[in-house]
């Protein structure tokens, strides 16, 4: 049995896996363990992608993408399963393996990818930038956000923010790793406690005004909201404190709509544009033997009311 202790990230696994595969070590002969010294993750530069001692192995690029994402998961079994899949795809001769969504190990890989994909997507959605100032030299606006992802996804999620917010300086702080953009390049630093992040933003009140008024009290669907925006995110969303009251008031608001007396239609005002519309609506004289239809097939045939 070979024991491999790696820093918990994709490049470390890939380097080790290449070497083990080169030595022909079967999956059951390897014991994978996360290095508990997580701090070293930030102290060392990323290893070279291709190690000189390991032979080149051909695997589908789709697998590398799936493996990179699965590596961000926290399940301690991920390294061993990734190596088993790598083995099966190469020395095991199952080149078509990824086509088998019915295979339990492929399925597990896809499940991890789904969780990671969802975590990244929620980070893209629920990060809230707070303006902290304007750089005196560059005149660029500066923003800071706090987010608590479920998995180690900061590096996977950061390029999106670079593309979207290239014109401003920003930092996204999380408990285990922080991402920063200064207009030139992305860089990463160790995690910080929440107290390092600003609490609110001067725009939050206006945003809450919008949130409150775009809500339709006549169609409350709380489960639909919570399945997409689970409560665990609420503590970092400035609009979330409104939710309880909006729900509590909705029945009364609908009742008052129903209690409002119905309003009759008022006569059309004297307006040149409305008159021109009515003139366009006048039906042309019907050709003999044809009525004016209605519905999608009809042309301009419609009587002015």
């Amino acid at each position: 049995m070979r024991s491999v202790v790696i820093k918990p990230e994709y490049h470390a696994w890939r380097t080790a896996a290449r070497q083990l595969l080169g030595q022909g070590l079967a999956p059951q002969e390897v014991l994978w363990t996360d290095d508990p010294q997580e701090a070293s993750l930030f102290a060392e530069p990323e290893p070279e992608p291709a190690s000189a001692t390991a032979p080149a192995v051909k695997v589908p690029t789709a697998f590398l993408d799936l493996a990179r994402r699965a590596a961000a998961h926290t399940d301690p079994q991920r390294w061993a399963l990734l190596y088993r899949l790598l083995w099966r795809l190469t020395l095991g001769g199952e080149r078509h393996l990824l086509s088998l969504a019915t295979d339990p190990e492929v399925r597990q890989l896809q499940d991890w990818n789904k969780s990671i994909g969802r975590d990244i997507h929620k980070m893209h959605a629920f990060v809230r930038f707070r303006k902290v100032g304007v750089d005196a030299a560059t005149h660029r606006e500066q923003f800071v956000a706090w987010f608590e992802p479920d998995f180690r996804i900061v590096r996977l999620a950061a390029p999106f923010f670079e593309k979207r917010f290239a014109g401003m300086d920003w930092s996204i702080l999380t408990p285990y790793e922080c991402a920063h953009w200064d207009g030139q390049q992305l860089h990463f630093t160790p995690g910080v406690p929440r107290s390092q992040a600003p609490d609110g933003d001067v725009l939050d009140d206006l945003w809450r005004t919008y949130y409150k008024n775009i809500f339709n009290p006549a169609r409350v669907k709380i489960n639909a909201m919570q399945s997409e925006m689970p409560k665990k995110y609420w503590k970092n969303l400035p609009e979330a404190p409104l939710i309880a009251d909006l729900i509590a008031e909705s029945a009364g608001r609908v009742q008052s709509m129903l209690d409002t007396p119905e309003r009759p239609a008022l006569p059309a005002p004297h307006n040149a544009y409305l008159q021109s519309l009515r003139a366009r609506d006048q039906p042309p004289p019907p050709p003999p033997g044809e009525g004016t239809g209605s519905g999608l097939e009809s042309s301009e045939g419609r009587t002015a009311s």
Partner: protein
Amino acid sequence: MDVARKLEILADAAKYDASCASSGAARKDSRGSAGVGSTGGAGICHSYTPDGRCVSLLKVLMTNACLYDCHYCINRRSSNVARARFTPAEVVQLTLDFYKRNYIEGLFLSSGIIRSADHTMELVIEVARLLREEHHFRGYIHLKTIPEASPSLIALAGRYADRISINVELPSQQSLDTLAPEKNLARTEIAMEHIREKIDERYAEKRPPGAPKPPPFATGQSTQMLVGADASTDASILGCANKLYTAHRLRRVYYSAFSPIPQPSSLLPLKAPPLIREHRLYQADWLLRFYDFKVEEIANPSAPHLDLALDPKLSWALRNRESFPIDVNQAPRERLLRIPGLGVRNVERILSARRFTRLRLTDLVRLRLQMKKLLPFILTDDHHPAKLGLDSDSLRARFLPPPQQLELTFDSPPTPGPSDFLSVRSGEL
């Protein structure tokens, strides 16, 4: 009036438009510019309100003053709702401020019609122009257009926007004549046709040699239909949607169940339709777009309404028992797509897996399919539905929601929710 008060009125006025899509735009981003914004990926829902709808765009009206008198609309001229009007600069500032905080990923701008169609379009376009040209904004912009506006203004709107839309609102001119007397379906279709030509021109695969590339244009158009405000049947609504998808290649048709509004009109029905009807229409819409169903298979003159108790695919399968069982190891793609409980993605998984293996029930369980729904309709080496012994009636009963349990307790009655109130006006329970 300050911007916050305007935002209250003009967001409230915009909430009845169901469109929220922010995907499907051409790929662009802010790298190398002084601005912000990116589009082209999957749409992002930045928040959800307790009505279950997502907030992805700042959805507001330029003004809610309106010359038209559409009776289902809170902003019609006969309503006495509070009125407000944004300046283009105010909408631009709100959009940028919200965007930079990652509250939203774009702007959905519509407007009541004031003075004339062209005047209104010019106001809306000015916001988009300022965002794109003065602020280098590369986020998503959806502009509502007015069919009667000049083609040159619609072209300009399309140049700045990622998505443009015109709401048909109701599926026939007859319905519009009663509830929205200023609206004209034929003119709407002419405008959609014109927009489609612009889109085709811009994204044509091949151009004549030497021909210049046409100016940028939105990648798609969409529309909305109101459900339950008049007597239109599901067959007529889906027929209209299908025509718009095929004739004008709309990206999306949104269905919006009419819901009570403040300032109700005397021409409106007393009772709102059940929200499940809207849901069934969306399911049917999916069958039309992704499952190769024909409208007549889902709803037709002899059965004009969708079954509210069962989803339309299952409903079709129960009416067409002779098409089943379907062999998951043999059937072609188009037949697999007809199996209730089997979605497009799992059909692809089955097709790709069965090139290498024969699928058994345990394989389907591993795909986490809805086995209870699937079993009566499929065949595998180790399963034939005949052994379930289900005739048509018991099969339908198998899928109906369980009857509500009547509980006798001495507790206080449950607190009524909004849906209980919807029936109050008509005295129905």
